[in-house]
């Protein structure tokens, strides 16, 4: 990945010449990329998003003809990395690969985070997170409405929540249906799997890793606006009558003011991942659906989800802490 080809050197030389003679930025964009790109990732090495980022970087690097160096900057659900990107030069050589939740959800949960869709530029989205409500395979309910009936007959049941969103869902459902449910805090995907398989909770909010154990676990509803490709029969929470569907997707973020031509070039490289055989095998085995969006669609998705999630969280009385 880090082999310096003659083309790169030439490109770098050209870029430097242009830089010195002070030509228009469009000319710079035409030569983009001329040197290695740094890709920030807001989670630690080895996590699911990090893996998607690295696999994406590999495909994009082949298409762009320059190395892409992945740098992990974990902290505060990606807000640390996003803050760093905000301060970076908008020349297209520093970008962030992260869930768009850092913009469309985090500001409503964390007081220190105040990003809006206008804080960054976007060069497309590639995969989606299959978040939903999961339970044991043999549990007496298979849909959300069946769960509501069951929970009404069995007050004091336990629900596992690993994030503020996870609490929001059950609180909203319980409020609307008048249910009595204990919310058990859980730590991360591993804690969630333990609690479900150990039958400590009857239902849990899952970020998607429960699909690793399809013999014992099932999805009763997706909390996204789309049905999960891994469980096409499970209805969405919106189909069940609660307008609470919230989507998050891995997104290529760039600093504010990045040239549109650069965004388009990156987006074209990102699109290569969607059809790359290795990338497809990898995402399939990790149960991560590929849902490519180009630059315009990414902007639209970002502002639409920002407005929607803001509405949902404010209506639920969630205040940023």
């Amino acid at each position, binding site marked *: 990945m880090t082999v310096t080809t003659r083309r790169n050197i030439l490109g770098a030389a050209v870029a430097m010449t242009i830089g010195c003679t002070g030509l228009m930025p469009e000319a710079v964009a035409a030569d983009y990329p001329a040197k290695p790109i740094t890709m920030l990732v807001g989670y630690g090495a*080895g996590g699911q998003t990090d893996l998607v980022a*690295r696999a994406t970087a590999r495909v994009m690097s082949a298409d762009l003809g320059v190395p892409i160096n992945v740098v992990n900057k974990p902290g505060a659900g990606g807000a640390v990395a996003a803050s760093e990107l905000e301060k970076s030069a908008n020349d297209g050589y520093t970008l962030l690969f992260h869930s768009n939740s850092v913009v469309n959800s985090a500001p409503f949960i964390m007081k220190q985070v105040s990003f809006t869709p206008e804080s960054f530029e976007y060069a497309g989205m590639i995969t989606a997170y299959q978040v939903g409500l999961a339970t044991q395979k043999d549990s007496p309910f298979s849909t959300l409405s069946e769960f509501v009936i069951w929970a009404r007959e069995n007050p004091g049941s336990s629900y596992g929540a690993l994030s503020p969103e996870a609490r929001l869902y059950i609180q909203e459902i319980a409020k609307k249906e008048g249910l009595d449910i204990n919310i058990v*805090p859980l730590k991360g995907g591993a804690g969630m799997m333990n609690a479900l398989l150990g039958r400590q909770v009857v239902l849990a909010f899952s970020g998607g890793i429960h699909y690793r154990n399809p*013999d014992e676990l099932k999805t009763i509803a997706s909390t996204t606006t789309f049905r999960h490709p891994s469980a096409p029969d499970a209805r969405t929470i919106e189909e069940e009558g609660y307008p609470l569907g919230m989507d998050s997707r891995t997104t290529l973020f760039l600093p504010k003011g990045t040239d549109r031509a650069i965004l388009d070039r990156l987006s074209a490289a990102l699109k290569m991942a969607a059809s790359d055989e290795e990338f497809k095998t990898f995402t399939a085995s990790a149960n991560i659906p590929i849902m490519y969006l180009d630059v315009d669609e990414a902007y639209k998705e970002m502002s639409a989800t920002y407005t929607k999630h803001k509405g949902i969280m404010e209506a639920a009385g969630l205040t940023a*802490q």
Partner: protein
Amino acid sequence: MDHLMTGFMDVLNPGTILWVAAGVTLGYILGAIPGLGKATGVAVAIPLTFYLTPVAALGMLIGIAKGSAAGSAVSAILLNTPGEPSSAPTALDGYPLARQGKAQKALKMGLFASVIGDFVSTLILILLAAPLARYALLIGPVELCAILLFSLTFIGGLSGGSLTKGLIAAALGVFFATIGLETETFIPRLTFGLLELEDGISLVPMAIGMLAVAEMINQAGNMKALDRETSAISDSAAHEDRVITRVEWRRSLPVIARGTLIGSVIGILPGLGASVASFLSYGATKNASKTPEKYGTGMIEGVAAAESADNAVVPSSLVPLFALGIPGSVIAALLISAFVLHGLTPGPLMFQQQPRLVAAVYASMILASFIMLIIGYTCQRLFAQIIKVPLRLIIPGVLFLCCVGAYMETGSIFSIYVMLFFALIGFFSRKLDFSFVTFLIGFVIGPNLEFTFRQSIQLLGSDITNLKHHPISIVFIVLTLATAWWTGRSNSRKAVVK
């Protein structure tokens, strides 16, 4: 079994053996260098796994994990600076041994205890993964809470001179662990508006500062005295100081067995990790000993207890991953990445989809145990020479590596500030004789205890009588009360005698 034979055939070719050996060596060296460790190994290995065959990639990752767990004993014994927090108890007796000129003996015991713990735990994983993981699921938050409460009683045994000071240090450890997002309602605690503190204080930079940097500053302060000692003692020429005698084997084997058991069990349980295991094993060994007052002065059993438990955690923490798809540890999460990169879904499905690859992973784990023995045995003679090097040459290098290690985990300068802050605390705790071991126990166990307690409140429906459905936790609560009473009584007696 048939699969295992095929697995060995897949692994026993020069290419794969080379990668496993490379992983073990890399891990062992990273582990032995203070400041660097698993976190660095991860950073190095992740991009590499893209380019290797699945078996080689997995073998290498397993090698790194196993190697770094064993290697961390080396710097604990020679420099009193554990390569990883889980080897902190190793230093308690290993370093005094080295200062007595018995460095080779301590290193050998550390290595053998590591290999035995690791090997037995690997066998447990291979033979009993599925049933064990089932039993582990019976240990829910309510039971875990009671077990953690009980493990806090070991602070009594590890406090050193003064129980009061030990408890104060432990309370400080708990305090620092409360910083960050509170896990039930997600309210930030004591973050002073710093985003970097939202996830809490990370164990790696904290431990590097507290254990390695503080110790280096401390030794720099005593440099003249230590140098004089170094030239006087160097490496003992007596044969019995270089090897483990038969008597020592007899005393240590039961200790290793207990350490392996504790390590294997802790590894399977969710969210505890190697540090808890080695502290518990050391504490239990000291409590069970007829001469507990000799611990900390160079008891070879102390090294055996800590290292066997530390290494037994690595294979057994893979049990929940293989049997149920739950990533129980850092290395398990790493392996998941290697699995999915090669198109394999980690979890129970692996056994149906790719039994051959799973068998190859098992085979490479056994292979890694043996390679670890060979590499460790070869390297320890070399490493033992460090004791002859004057400290003025060692300290700057170690401080540099500490900064690298702290920086590597988060890639941010903030981690280095965290390291420096805890170096100060660690330095004063040494000068004022507060135990940094109980501080670490508080730091590691405190947040888990709080979290499982809050889970338990919800699971028990805020009604304490519901505890009757959890007999295991009742047993541990009773044990805790009994131990606390006993420790308190013997402590007050000691005070009367004085």
